[in-house]
C-alpha cells in the first residue's frame, strides 16, 4: 500500500491504495468522479482518456502511483458542474422536461465549446465513448486549432464509438474548432 496525492480537476485527492490500482480506478472510486468511463481496460477503446500533466492518456493503462503528485483533468472539468438535481430524476420527471440538461439543473451556457458542438451535431448516442472523445479532442484542438477532417480522424483513432459512425463526431470537432478559434487563445 502507498499513500498518494493526485490533483484531480484542481482538487487535491489523497488515497492509500494498492500499487495495482489503475488511474481510472483512483478517479472513479477514490475521487468519486464517474464521468470517466472504462470500456475495455486494455488501452484500446479510449473511453477512459483524461489529461495527465497536460497530455491525454488512457487512464486504464496508467497506474495511480505513476500519477502521484501529478495533475489530472477529467471530463467533469470541461464545464461548470451544477449537477445537483433540483428533484430526484425519474422517468416521469424526465418526461416532463424537454432536454436532459434541464433535468439535471444545468444549462447549455455552461457547456465547453466541444460539449456544445457534440450536443448540436448529435455526436453522441449512448454517450459511453463521449468523455474520452471530448478529452482527446480538447488536447488535439489546443495543439492544432485549424485541423482538417482527416486530421481529426487521426486524432481520435484510438477512441472507439459503437454508435455514431464517427461522422457527427468529426462534424462536432470541426464546429468546436471554429468556436474555439473565434474565441481566441
Amino acid at each position, binding site marked *: 500500500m502507498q499513500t498518494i496525492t493526485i490533483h484531480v480537476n484542481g482538487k487535491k485527492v489523497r488515497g492509500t491504495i494498492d500499487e495495482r490500482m489503475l488511474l481510472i480506478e483512483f478517479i472513479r472510486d477514490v475521487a468519486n468522479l464517474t464521468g470517466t468511463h472504462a470500456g475495455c481496460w486494455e488501452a484500446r477503446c479510449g473511453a477512459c482518456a483524461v489529461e495527465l500533466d497536460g497530455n*491525454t492518456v488512457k487512464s486504464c493503462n496508467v497506474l495511480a502511483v505513476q500519477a502521484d503528485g501529478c495533475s489530472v483533468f477529467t471530463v467533469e472539468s470541461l464545464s461548470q458542474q451544477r449537477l445537483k438535481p433540483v428533484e430526484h430524476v425519474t422517468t416521469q420527471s424526465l418526461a416532463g422536461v424537454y432536454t436532459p440538461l434541464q433535468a439535471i439543473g444545468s444549462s447549455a451556457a455552461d457547456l465547453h465549446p466541444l460539449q456544445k458542438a457534440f450536443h448540436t451535431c448529435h455526436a453522441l448516442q449512448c454517450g459511453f465513448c463521449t468523455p474520452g472523445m471530448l478529452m482527446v479532442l480538447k488536447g488535439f484542438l489546443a495543439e492544432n486549432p485549424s485541423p482538417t477532417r482527416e486530421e481529426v480522424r487521426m486524432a481520435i483513432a484510438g477512441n472507439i464509438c459503437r454508435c455514431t459512425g464517427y461522422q457527427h463526431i468529426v462534424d462536432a470537432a470541426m464546429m468546436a474548432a471554429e468556436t474555439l478559434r473565434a474565441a481566441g487563445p
Partner: protein
Amino acid sequence: MTPFTYFQPAGLEEAFSLVAEHGPGTRLMAGGQSLLLALKERLARPPTVVSLSRIPELSAISYAEDGSLEVGAATTYAQLQKAAFTGWHRHISAIAGNLADRSVRSMGTIGGGACQADPRYDVPTLLVASAARMVIGSIDGMRSIDAAAFFSPAGGTTLGPRDILCRIVFPPAGVFASFGFDKFRFRVFDAAVVNAALAVTTDEAGRITIARLVFGGIAACPSVAGAAGARLCGVQLNEFASLPVADIAAQASEEVLPIATATTRHRQFQSELIKTITTGLLTQAGAPGG
C-alpha cells in the same frame, strides 16, 4: 495483476542498485503501455516494479559534439513528435507521431518500444536501419552496443537482468543522404503487418556507399535485406530512375521472406507488401529531396 512493490527512483544510480538488489524478477516500467497490458493478463508477475519515468537524465534529448542525437530511453513518443529536429532526424519525429494513438504516445517511450522488441512495432526497425547505438547501464557500469546486436534473433533483447537501457544515440542529422520509413497496418492504431526503413549514405561524389534496407514484422527481430541493399551501392542517388526498382524489391522480399516458406495467406500477403513498400521507398529515395 499480482501484487508488487513499486519503486520510483529519482536517479539512475538508485535505479541500478534497486534492480541489482531485488533480483531477476524485477521489471522496469517506462511508460507502462506494454508492461501494464502484460501485468493485467498476468503474463508477467513481477514481485517488484521499478519505474523509470522520474529519472530526468532518461528523458532528455541532447546532441553530442559530433552532432549525434542522444535520446533518453524514457523519452515519450509525444516528446519526440514535438521535438524540433533537422535532417533525417525529422523521420524520428514522424515515426513517433504515427504509431499507436495520441493517448498511448503520451506515455509510451522509445526505450520501452526498443526493450519490448516486438518486431511489428516501429522502433526496432528505425533503430536497426539508422544503425543507432544503444547505451546500456547497470550497477557494473556503462557500455554501448549496436542496435543490430541489441535485438536477439530468437526475439526479445540481449539485455541482462540488471541492465537498463539508458540512451539511444542516433547518427548526426546529415549522415544519411536519404532516409525513408513506411508501413502497412489495417487500422491506424494497429501494429504493422510489415514496416520498413531505408537509410542511404553517399560518398563525396554522391555515389551510394551504404543502403540499409530493414523490415519489421517478418521475423522475431528486424530483418536486413543485405544483398538487395548492396545492389544500390555505387549508384548515384539521382540515377535511381534507371535502376530495376521492381526487381530489387522482389529480391528484398525473397531475401527476408523466401516465397517457398510463405505458406500461409498472411505470409504471402507480407511477401507482396514487402515488394510494394520497398518499391515505394526506392522511388522516394531517388526523387529529388528524398
